């Protein structure tokens, strides 16, 4: 369906070239967990950019807190489902987790969900120490507006590798990836290491 001109100003996120560019940044984020990638350069929200780059009718999405507007959902062409079954779950990181995502199976750990968490800010706030694949030694990450129980939950979800979930943290313009292999310690508090 051709879109009316009134909508075309924010179509940028939906172009093939933008999706390729955003994907490469996300791939870098997953390769080097904890490093902050700047996704948004032209007004579009990091969340829209991220979902547009990764999601289509070949994958499923859960948005239990209705963070997405109808138009975005429409354009994603993806079946909406419950967070327990979705490939991708979008959630507000400032609120505690209220669901158990798919963790995959021993034979198919890739069925473990990707959780896209919106936070207030990346690069400022509570300091975490990250270790694991993609990190030479250790990497520090500052986050504002991530409800600590997410890390607690994450630890138990990821307690039986290869099963687990992979998390993308987003503020309005930045992205950070936390694959299931990343061990996280909140600085100055007890360890949430997985």
């Amino acid at each position: 369906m051709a879109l009316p001109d009134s909508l075309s100003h924010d179509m940028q996120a939906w172009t093939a070239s933008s999706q390729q560019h955003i994907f490469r940044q996300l791939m870098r984020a997953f390769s080097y967990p904890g490093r902050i990638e700047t996704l948004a350069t032209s007004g579009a929200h990091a969340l829209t950019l991220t979902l547009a780059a990764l999601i289509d009718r070949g994958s499923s999405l859960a948005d239990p807190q209705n963070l997405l507007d109808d138009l975005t959902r429409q354009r994603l062409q993806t079946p909406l489902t419950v967070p327990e079954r979705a490939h991708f779950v979008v959630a507000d990181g400032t609120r505690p987790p209220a669901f158990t995502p798919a963790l995959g199976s021993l034979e198919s750990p890739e069925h473990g969900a990707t959780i896209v968490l919106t936070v207030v800010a990346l690069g400022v706030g509570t300091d975490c120490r990250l270790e694991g694949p993609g990190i030479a030694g250790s990497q520090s990450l500052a986050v504002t507006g991530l409800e600590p129980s997410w890390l607690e939950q994450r630890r138990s979800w990821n307690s039986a590798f290869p099963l687990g979930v992979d998390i993308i943290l987003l503020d309005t313009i930045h992205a950070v990836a936390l694959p299931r292999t990343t061990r996280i310690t909140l600085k100055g508090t007890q360890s949430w290491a997985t």
Partner: protein
Amino acid sequence: MNSEYELPQDEAAYSFGFLDEYAKREIRRCVLKAISIPGYQTPYASREMPMGRGFGTGGLQLTLALIGPADTVKVIDQGADDSVNAVSLRKFIEQTCPSVDSTERTAEATLIQSRHRIPELPLEEAQVLVLQVPYPDALVVVEPSEARRKIMHGEGDYSRLLTKLYEDIVQFKEITISHRYPTRINGHYVIDPSPIPRYDVPQLHHSKALVLLGAGREKKIYAVPPYCNAEPLVFDDVPFRTEDFTDAKGQRRACHRCGATNSFLDEIIGDDDAQGLDKTWQCSDADFCRGQRESSRVMAAQLA
């Protein structure tokens, strides 16, 4: 077709990157999972490419799903940029990705697709290495059923593979695996690192660059993330050995073109090799060899 059908001639144009965008997004989703589960063979719906399965369609689909105008791509086969297959793959990429630069210099490349070699020059964080994989599963030699192999992988159970290696040692006093050496990633999954020589395996260990492996025929994508453990399977008493390039006198052979004694060498049989005497040795990595020759003063000093 019905009797009135005529083939439309105006449909020849291909879109950027050949593959349709749905195919690319699926591969991209798989890549992120592959990185998140180091060494795990992520299944994907491999598309048919216009070259044969086994000619690097898995690597090519990864390259086409990743590549963008900002990239500089390098394609090698057997270490060389102008090896026949490398040439035809690079041609195809240049054809379907018009705005992308290609290079033969490892240092200039952001995206390197390779078959059978990892460049001698250590890779950087800004680079991604894509390896073409014919057989993705290291367990296939001990377990034909994929269903059972998936469970063994999940449990990290490689006892049967180790037994196989052990039997080798008993029979030959040596592990006879020459290339595709089973390598354990991040202490869990054992991968087939693609048919790279043992000489290249250490390069996977804590590489600065992401390494992606694509098997088109077997429809699998897996990854060795940067700064990640990649350890060849060994026994304490039988160490892992890379290819031996020492001559009869115990001297490390040198490339006859650049004189390098620290590179993987190709053995070249001359025209009159009746007694196996007419042999020369030469860098397998063409770009490395060129680099060495460019800084030949240093070489000369070493050779003197």
